[in-house]
């Protein structure tokens, strides 16, 4: 396909791309001389120049850089550990902000379709929370029911309770009664 067969927008996009290459090359000391294509809209040239000037790269803090470097070093050491001791250890999971870096859990990192499919509502998490809450409520209800209806217990329990009450009464009576 020749340039002339493309539609106008694609041709303009191609010209813009060439101009961008030159502008970015200029910033890194590469070859950027030569006349600007007269077909390129000056409006695009100006916008390119402004974005080139204003969209600066932002650096993280030194503290963050070193903290993450340390965390990566720990993770790297954990990855090396099984081999170092003869590979008899299991698979070492690298914690990632409270989660694991299991490949299935992080499939979205490498698969764009997986990212689209991913349901962020976390039904498993919500289901677990609901189950936990239900168990807690059932436990509280059982304790309340037990407190409201104390049982007499077995003969052994009654005997033990009688001995305990006799001891308590004797202790309250004191040595001078």
């Amino acid at each position, binding site marked *: 396909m020749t340039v002339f067969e493309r539609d106008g927008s694609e041709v303009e996009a191609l010209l813009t*791309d060439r101009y961008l290459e030159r502008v970015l090359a200029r910033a890194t000391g590469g070859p950027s001389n030569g006349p600007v294509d007269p077909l390129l809209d000056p409006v695009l040239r100006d916008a390119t120049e402004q974005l080139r000037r204003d969209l600066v790269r932002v650096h993280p803090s030194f503290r963050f850089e070193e903290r993450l470097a340390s965390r990566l070093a720990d993770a790297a050491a954990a990855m090396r550990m099984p081999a170092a001791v003869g590979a008899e250890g299991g698979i070492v999971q690298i914690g990632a902000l409270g989660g694991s870096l299991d490949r299935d859990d992080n499939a979205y990192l490498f698969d764009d379709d997986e990212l689209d499919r991913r349901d962020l509502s976390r039904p498993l998490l919500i289901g677990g929370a609901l189950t936990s809450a239900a168990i807690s409520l059932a436990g509280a209800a059982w304790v309340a029911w037990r407190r409201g209806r104390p049982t007499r217990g077995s003969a052994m329990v009654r005997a033990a309770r009688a001995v305990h009450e006799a001891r308590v009464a004797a202790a309250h009576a004191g040595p001078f009664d």
Partner: protein
Amino acid sequence: MFVSTGPCNAMARPVFGRVRPAGEAGSTRVTHLDRDRALVEEARRDPSSFDALYRRYLAQVYSYAYYELGDHHDAEDATERTFLAALANLDRFEERARPADGEGASTFRVWLFRIARNVVANQRRGRRRHPQAPIETAALVADPLDIEASAAVHDEAAAAWRAVGRLPADRRRAVVLRFVEEMSTAEIAGVLGRSEGAVRVLIHRALRTVAHDLGRGGGRSR
């Protein structure tokens, strides 16, 4: 291990080469000579060597996340997830180019930015938050002693940041990768999973929109 990364906007361009294999006269295939090949191989042998790749690309990944999320803490979070995932999955990185990535676009940097892109996208979806242009950073480009110039530059930069922030997501990403990360069209195509032609059109349309927003377009933005 520490590797000097050079100046702030130093480009991490991959090296592409066309070779003609013996016995295949008339046909050429693209062989990708990744500039990070040695570091990647070393990191695969010894994970602690990943530090060199980390130092080389930290600012780029962080910068991309910052432009996408508009918040330093969110950007740090995304950066951390990206590098931890990259380290843990380094054996999955393939230097071989795939047709869908565009010509020779499979570099470590492209792979890393694909992870970053998905981490950021996941973060944005999870929080359902709109990015806000972090305009205070624009002051970095001005001379702090020249208050008038600083204010003018600040205003212009803030306007540019806002204009980029208002772009549709795919155009914004393409612009950030082109201007901030200084990626080639092929690399951006690899990161975004689009063709090179599509990336060129995305950037071209983004520039038209930005120019219009900045009062230079004459109503031609689309």
